[in-house]
């Protein structure tokens, strides 16, 4: 990942330079901009793909703040509102409504000359205050060696034979609240039918699943064979396969849950124009492949697929049918109910 060739950086600089040349800038160029994001391989991919490009094109260094978990990002931004030290930040779709409500995001100006890539992004990924960079789908991952009858629907998670071998995200996980919607779908109801979802949750408790706090723990549970079935994104399932565990991802009959991650501009940032340039670069067809190669996430730019080698393309693309059947949860609705659902979930699962 670190050994990217100079040529690649040059290509990226070219990608950045064009919009830079055309854009007008209101303020002086800062020495650096600060972006809040995740660490590990993600932060490195961002560094090699996007940060390198903006630095090569404009000389501005990007300082990544990887230290805070997503909710803390919002809190820090909030506390710094009158003296904002951050310029851009990244979250997953479930938390953006909260960030918007808390007033820590600048609205996206679709007409901005610095956001040229917007026209190439699938419209479903462009929101009022943020734009998604990559996406995936939550479905069922299972161990092909240890599971006799492959699952085909979310409802199959409730099969008695999986007792004690299911891994699921805890309510505090970023996709934790999704289990309620998934439960409702599995019961044949609407995703917003919380009561149906909680009824299914009660039944799931009897299955004695392993509840974990983060995605890496889900993946580790598969690798260590603590679990033979669970909820996971398509992309991370490929990663687990790469570790040598025989797992497969299934698009559930009820529809896989769409999930996306993206970037927004910090409210009252001092470098709004450059934050827009940064945002634009995350949407570039040339930078998104960094993430596809690292995580098997398809990019939200229509042209990013073509930049990939054919085997990778075949692996990460969703068929048109699948794209149609993707379930888009009402993230605003879920964000509004997060606190209430956390409490209800704890009462059902943690009371023991």
């Amino acid at each position, binding site marked *: 990942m670190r050994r990217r060739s100079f040529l690649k950086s040059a290509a990226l600089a070219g990608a950045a330079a064009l919009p830079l040349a055309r854009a007008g800038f209101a303020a002086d160029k800062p020495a650096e901009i600060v972006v809040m994001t995740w*660490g590990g391989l993600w932060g490195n991919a961002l560094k090699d793909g996007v940060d390198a490009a903006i630095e090569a094109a404009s000389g501005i260094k990007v300082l990544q703040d990887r230290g805070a978990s997503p909710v*803390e990002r919002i809190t820090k931004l909030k506390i710094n509102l009158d003296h904002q*030290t951050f310029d851009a930040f990244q979250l997953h779709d479930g938390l953006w409504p909260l960030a918007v409500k808390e007033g820590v995001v600048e609205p996206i100006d679709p007409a901005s000359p610095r956001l040229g890539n917007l026209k190439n992004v699938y419209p479903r990924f462009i929101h009022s205050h943020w734009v998604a960079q990559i996406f995936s789908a939550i479905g069922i991952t299972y161990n092909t060696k240890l599971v006799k009858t492959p699952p085909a629907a979310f409802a199959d998670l409730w099969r008695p034979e999986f007792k004690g071998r299911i891994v699921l995200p805890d309510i505090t996980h970023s996709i934790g609240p999704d289990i309620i919607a998934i439960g409702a779908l599995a019961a044949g109801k609407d995703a917003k039918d919380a009561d149906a979802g909680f009824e299914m949750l009660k039944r799931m408790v009897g299955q004695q699943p392993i509840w974990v706090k983060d995605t890496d723990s889900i993946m580790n549970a598969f690798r260590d064979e603590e679990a033979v079935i669970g909820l996971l994104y398509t992309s991370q399932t490929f990663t687990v396969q790469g570790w040598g565990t025989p797992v497969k991802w299934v698009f559930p009959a009820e529809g896989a849950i769409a999930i996306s991650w993206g970037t927004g501009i910090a409210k009252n940032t001092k470098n709004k124009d450059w934050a827009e340039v940064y945002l634009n670069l995350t949407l570039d067809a040339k930078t998104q492949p960094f993430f596809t190669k690292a995580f098997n996430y398809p990019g939200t730019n229509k042209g990013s697929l073509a930049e990939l080698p054919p085997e990778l393309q075949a692996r990460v693309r969703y068929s048109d049918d699948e794209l149609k059947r993707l379930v888009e949860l009402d993230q605003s609705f879920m964000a509004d109910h997060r606190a209430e659902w956390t409490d209800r979930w704890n009462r059902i699962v943690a009371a023991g």
Partner: protein
Amino acid sequence: MSRPAAILLVLLAGSAYLLVLGPILIVVASAFSAADFFGFPPSGLSLRWFTSFFATPELRAAFALSLELALVAASTATVCGGLAAYVLARRQGWLASLAQGLFLAPLVFPTIVLGLALLLFYRAIGGVPLFLGLLIAHTVIGSPFAVRAVLASLQALDPRLEEAGRSLGAGPWRSFRLVTLPLIWPGLLSGWTFAFIVSFGELNTALFLTGPGTTTLPIEIFSYLQFQGGQLVIAAASALQVGLILVVVLVVERLVGLTRILRA
């Protein structure tokens, strides 16, 4: 001591050491593993995780910052807690007990809320430089350990010793320095060590109080463990931490002779 009693003691003590050291041995052993993850049995030997650690500037910088912060914070915590313990040790009554409760309270308060409280407070007073902010937080968190350790030392100390020194003509400071200080030295050192350890490993206030460019090692580890950052380079970092302490202790022992200082 009777045979069966001795055997029982050894078994219990052995179990205690196994519980305390077991996970660490696994971690240190895994640092030398050729595999990608913790796993048993390890599939081969390799030093690549150590090279990976040293090749990562963020980890090195975070290591250095954590070390510096811990050294300073432990010292300030020991001074703060030690002073408080010295004054409160001999006193009884509800006021003294309340004061003791105050100095011990940070032990139990969830540090994540403390971190938020301090962050809000720093903003309210106009902003505090990042390192100083962290130092303050870690001093607060480390003081209880110093208070406890020095209190324990002082309680074991016969107050008449200091009085004797006083009656022989030594002023209060001299009496403290020549009589009390040498005797509570083990308590001070023990408190300092705990405060150092706590600061070095502290994560939750750091989550709020670090910022771009200033990250501590636990924060760096935390961020590394997000998104498949690689568990074993962290194992290497941990092995190095343990190795560092070992080296420090050996050096101090050579130079100063810990055993002589710690004459109980």
